[in-house]
């Protein structure tokens, strides 16, 4: 063990058999919304938290639908939908506390909204603007990351920074199934394990990297096994079962926060829409497959489960729906207000102080813009 990790890790590194994921994905609730057979070994979240998760999933679904609609209307440049992945999007955020950080990918706008960032701001990049729209330092949410898996290393560095400052924060880093083939995914797992940093990696395995199916992406028995070789405790979970995803992530966050190093979770889910609005998923997957996964939709599943337990009333459902409609209306109104960007600002944040060359180019463009206005 490196001395660096030694200073932080509480207790020994996990033994080899403790690293292994469950043989089958952890599941609490079946697709029909009934209790799953096998005991999972993870503590179920409280009904109160599950009710809150339901509320945020309804909001996430509505946000996603509204963003897709705005894209069809030409108001967004592009939108990568996460419809069908709401259990992951919401659980990944609910498992965190205020002091924790989230490192999302471009598909995780719903998670960033669930974290409390203004939906209009969250869509800034996807509206075609040049910056991420929100303040990462104030929100503790890194900019949506477009290159694959690169953000995982930033997450490890941030986790190390929190620990060095004596904070008990944990970093949640999202990645997709395709991203696990990138070198940075492996380097991040390795760095996190060697330095014992408090980071949780959540793979949302939505079965496709644009058009390439999982079977052509990896020969691993499950993506969760990729953590084992690095000494990272790993688990696989039914990614459309909110109860299971939250239960496993709660454990993962606890593991990281209490000084036991990183944790890798693979959540098996499905992207019901195309890669983005510009995609044509009919070219690589059949309707039957989509119908099958639509039947495993995480939202009605949680609703059935909670209603059967008396943890969700008709009124709760109506309130959540009304809140979702209000969010959608605010989003439409906010996007409506969106004016043209100040083109001259593109020079202002390249460096802390613009270089003489950038000042010269800014003046030149300013003259050009004034000429066009005149």
């Amino acid at each position, binding site marked *: 063990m490196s001395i660096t990790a030694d200073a932080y890790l509480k207790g020994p590194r996990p033994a080899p058999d403790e690293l292994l994921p469950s043989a089958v994905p952890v599941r609490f609730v079946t697709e029909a919304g009934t209790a799953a057979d096998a005991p999972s070994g993870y503590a179920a979240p409280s009904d109160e938290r599950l009710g809150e998760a339901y509320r945020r999933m309804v909001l996430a679904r509505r946000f996603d639908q509204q963003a897709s609609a705005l894209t069809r209307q030409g108001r967004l440049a592009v939108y990568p939908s996460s419809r069908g992945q709401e259990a992951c999007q919401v659980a990944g955020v609910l498992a965190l506390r205020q002091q924790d950080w989230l490192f999302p990918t471009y598909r995780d706008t719903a998670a960033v909204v669930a974290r409390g960032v203004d939906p209009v701001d969250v869509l800034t990049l996807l509206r075609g603007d*040049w910056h991420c729209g929100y303040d990462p330092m104030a929100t503790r949410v890194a900019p949506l990351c477009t290159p694959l898996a*690169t953000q*995982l290393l930033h997450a490890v*560095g941030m*986790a190390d920074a929190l620990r*060095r*400052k004596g904070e008990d924060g944990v970093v949640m880093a999202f990645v997709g199934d395709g991203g696990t083939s990138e070198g940075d995914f492996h*380097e991040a797992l390795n760095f996190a394990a060697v330095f014992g940093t408090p980071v949780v990696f959540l793979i949302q395995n939505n079965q496709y990297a644009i058009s390439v199916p999982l079977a052509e992406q990896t020969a691993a028995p499950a993506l969760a096994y990729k953590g084992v070789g690095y000494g990272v405790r790993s688990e696989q979970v039914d990614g459309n079962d909110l109860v299971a995803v939250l239960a496993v992530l709660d454990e993962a966050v606890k593991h990281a926060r209490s000084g036991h190093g990183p944790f890798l979770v693979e959540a098996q889910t499905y992207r019901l829409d195309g890669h983005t609005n510009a995609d044509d998923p009919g070219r690589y997957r059949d309707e039957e497959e989509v119908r099958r996964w639509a039947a495993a939709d995480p939202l009605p599943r949680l609703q059935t489960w909670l209603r059967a337990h008396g943890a969700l009333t008709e009124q709760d459902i109506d309130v959540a729906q009304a809140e979702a409609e209000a969010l959608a209306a605010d989003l439409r109104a906010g996007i409506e207000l969106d004016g043209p960007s100040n083109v001259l600002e593109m020079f202002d944040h390249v460096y802390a102080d613009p270089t*003489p060359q950038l000042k010269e180019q800014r003046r030149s463009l300013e003259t050009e813009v004034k000429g066009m206005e005149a």
Partner: protein
Amino acid sequence: MGTVTMAQALNSALRDALSEDDRVLTFGEDVGRLGGVFRITDGLRDEFGEQRCFDTPLAESGLVGFAVGLAMGGFRPVVELQFDAFAYPAFEQITSHVAKMRNRTRGRVSLPMVIRVPYGGGIGGVEHHSDSSEAYYAHTPGLKVVTPATVEDAYWLLRDAVCDPDPVVFLEPKKLYWSKEDADLARRGAAPTARAVIRRPGLDATLLAYGPSVPVAIDAAVEAARDGIDVEVVDLRTLVPFDDETVTASVRRTGRCVVVQEAQGFAGVGAEIVARVQERCFHSLAAPVVRVAGFDVPYPPPKLEHAYLPSVDRVLDAIERLQFDDQPDVRHLAPEAS
């Protein structure tokens, strides 16, 4: 005052930066126990502890990406990438994240970090150990690119780089690591980052050089003086941001200019400099601006590198081509025309 090598000056700069600011961390491959393959971090692990000077797993993208997170979290990482050509695995992290973070967060997240890269040839390194990779970084907006040529500059430019609010790619000319100067590093004589400096004043022509090419340019200027040509040598020091002011003033004074670089010539930093000089100094120029650069071949192995590296003779040849006798230089014309 005492005799100091560039390697020792860089080591002192890191030591002083670590002493002055708790947020400074330095890490990379073999920088801890070993003190770096060039010993630039020698003794720092013992002095500051493994929390502040440490080895990372052998993965360049990993260690730059890790540094990005630390910088976001309020630290000032100084990363060592062991050799120029071994820095390439980190290229995506450097170009897509290190360079762009401030911009893509509208100025809310800055990355005050330094990426140290030993670069250039002339030390008899086998393949992949001698690249001049400055153009890749200089072409990327958001990075500052700095390269010292003297012992004193090595110290002060690195101190400046650590304090800079922006990410700095700090290119260390390997063949100058063991160059010596009588220097008092505690007293700042060096010009600030972003300014070029005139190493040798002259009236007849300007030699523009940086990093490992500066001593070559100075030697050539000394030789040229014997032939009665008074050559000014400008050490660029900072490639980004580029000091147009100093360069332009010098070339306007002398009316003639040669740019020297060790890197391959095509689409190199020298090409950009020539363009800038002719755009700004055209009416002051008595001759076309000439480049002396490496050949457009992969950097050759030790047995051949003497033939590749810009030499004093090659620089003198270039000076001769500056039409002092008012005759056009015909070497670049088509064979039929010459």
